[in-house]
């Protein structure tokens, strides 16, 4: 394993339910072999739909590990085949990867790729908030007040289980919501602070919040 190490990127794509398969196909056509699709819910920003009572819809989230030299081709194909450059067709973004380990590649530490300018010349960051189930509305409200345009909710369990919960004598992991908000870098601080303030996040068990870099993004028009 002495060959020069390619820089790797964690590629995210969030689309309406049913389109995850298409991203997977594009990714595989380009030679990718490490991808997963899972479900989430995306907030709806249309005032009319909100008035009707529709607050979120089903989304599919694709996660794939790609070589840096595949990135351009992948984005081009996504824009071509899924119209990603138009509004409301879904979003895609890249995150730098520091370390990759798998059976075939051995374990490698990779220097992170240079930060690239996004297509619409804005820098983005990804805010992750992990809270107990039921607190997601507070997070989204606080984020919206601080300038975010929406978020994606992923259902999970047990991340913060400091407390042991039992149900009919079986130990269970409490349900959690992970909220992913892609924000413009200049708004990140405001949004993070608003959420921290709202949740009183320094209190133990209130939740965790962290921010990750995004090196490239597509489909975030209102950002």
């Amino acid at each position, binding site marked *: 394993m002495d060959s020069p190490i390619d820089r790797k990127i964690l590629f995210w794509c969030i689309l309406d339910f049913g389109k995850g398969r298409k991203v997977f196909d594009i990714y595989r056509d380009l030679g990718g072999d490490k991808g997963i*699709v899972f479900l989430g819910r995306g907030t709806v920003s249309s005032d009319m739909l909100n008035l*009707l*009572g529709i607050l979120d819809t089903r989304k599919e989230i694709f996660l794939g590990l790609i070589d840096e030299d595949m990135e351009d081709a992948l984005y081009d194909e996504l824009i071509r085949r899924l119209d990603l450059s138009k509004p409301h067709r879904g979003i895609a973004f890249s995150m730098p990867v520091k370390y990759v380990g798998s059976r075939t590649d051995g374990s490698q530490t990779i220097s992170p790729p240079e930060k690239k300018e996004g297509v619409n010349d804005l820098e983005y960051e990804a805010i992750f908030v992990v809270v107990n189930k039921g607190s997601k509305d507070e997070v989204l409200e606080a984020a919206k007040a601080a300038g975010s345009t929406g978020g994606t909710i992923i259902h999970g369990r047990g991340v913060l289980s400091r407390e042991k919960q039992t149900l009919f004598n*079986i130990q269970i992991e409490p*349900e959690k919501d992970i909220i992913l908000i892609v924000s413009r870098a200049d708004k990140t601080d405001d949004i993070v602070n608003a959420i921290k303030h709202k949740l009183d996040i320094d209190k133990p068990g209130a939740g965790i919040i962290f921010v990750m870099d995004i090196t490239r993004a597509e489909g975030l028009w209102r950002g």
Partner: protein
Amino acid sequence: MNILLERLREVSLSVLPITIIVVVLSLTVVPIESTLLIRFLIGALVVVMGLGIFLFGASLGVAPIGNLMGHALAGTNSPWIVGILGTLLGFLITIAEPDLQILAGQVRQASGGVVSNTLILVVVSAGVGIMVAIGLLRILYSKPLNIVFTLAYSFIFLLGLKTSEEFLAISVDASGATTGAMTTPFILALGYGVSQLKGGDTFEEDSFGLVGQASAGPIFAIMIMSALMGLRNIEGAADAFVPNVGVIGPYVRLLPQMMRDSVFTLAPLTILFLLFDWRVFKTNKRTRDSILKGLLYTFIGLTLFLTGVNGGFMEVGRYMGERIAISHTWLLPIIGFVLGMVVVLAEPAVYVLTEQIEEVTAGRIRRKVILIALSIGIALAVCMSMLRIMIPQLKLWHFLLPGFALGVLLSHLVPPIFVGIAFDAGGVASGPMTATFVLAFAQGAASSIPTASVMVDGFGVIAMVAMMPLVTIQTLGALVKLGERRALRRQVKEEGK
């Protein structure tokens, strides 16, 4: 706006097949007079609107309530509370089901007035309530689903030996009638809520099967009742069928009646929600508003849907059954097959179930695959019901006994998640659309065939519709299992090289 258009497209696509088949049949085998055909087309349009609005309502209102209740019940950590409240919830939700009111009327007639409507309602609802409670406790105590079904159906089989053939048909029909358009989304969500809270590695399979278990309740409830009261033969005859006149008139007459039915159906759930929300859930304003709006849509959608089905679909179904039986008797099973295949696609709860399957399995089991298995199941069910009406020697239990036996046997062989889905699908398929249309078709056919009786042969059709998905969907599960095993073997072989 995309979301609304997308929904409308999906709903239109699910009602289109049955509409096209009926129009094609009217141009070829059974000419239908133009007023009736136009009324049917208007009915189809009303059904599309109703179905679309109803589904929005179910996902915004009914399902979240079921989910919240599931969480709240299981969160109490007390088997007593789960048992008592589970029974109560199942009871209250079922007793308001309009299909059940109709069935109760039929049973009173069939028993020659010995059994009152109220008694049937209470007996059947209690059956559902008890099974819902058992089903919830099963999830919490991690007992395998196939054991519960094997026990339940063995019990039913033993009771069945003591039950007359007529009441056998009535009791199995009752199980189809109770899991209607409204109860299904609620009971599905209730089970999902409990399994979500519990989590663990059986999460996927725990999320299904509660509807299937609830459907078993009415069967043994009516059987026990008929055994205790010594009811044996069906007396009396079916009500004379009064055809409607005009194109718009029937809809205007039906609308207020369907509105009342929908109010009755939704009332217990709405009251329970407001009560629970006040003391237990304490949801925020945003969520509460969304749920209440959802209930309003459910009401509007259900009213439109039922009006369309009863005003447009029922009479066409009956008319076609009558005509085909007279002119092309041998075509009955074939046309029955085709109609059964497409009619189930327009069933509201089928949508709700397939959507939940996609959500729970993160898209691993796709809606289309389940729909195909379900379509084939209902097609076979209608086809065999036609054969039964045509050939007097064929009895209902000739189909039901092997069918349920096969269903229970398969439940020990296929992946557990398919067991839950299959038994749920049985309850789901026998909803207002299939029940009304298929039943009308069968009764029409029976009225034209001299050896058949509308009353006796009319019962049992829904039972077939509820039974066949057990066989076809579990067969699908077996195929999936074989396919996965083969793929695994191939992978092992390749890696060995």
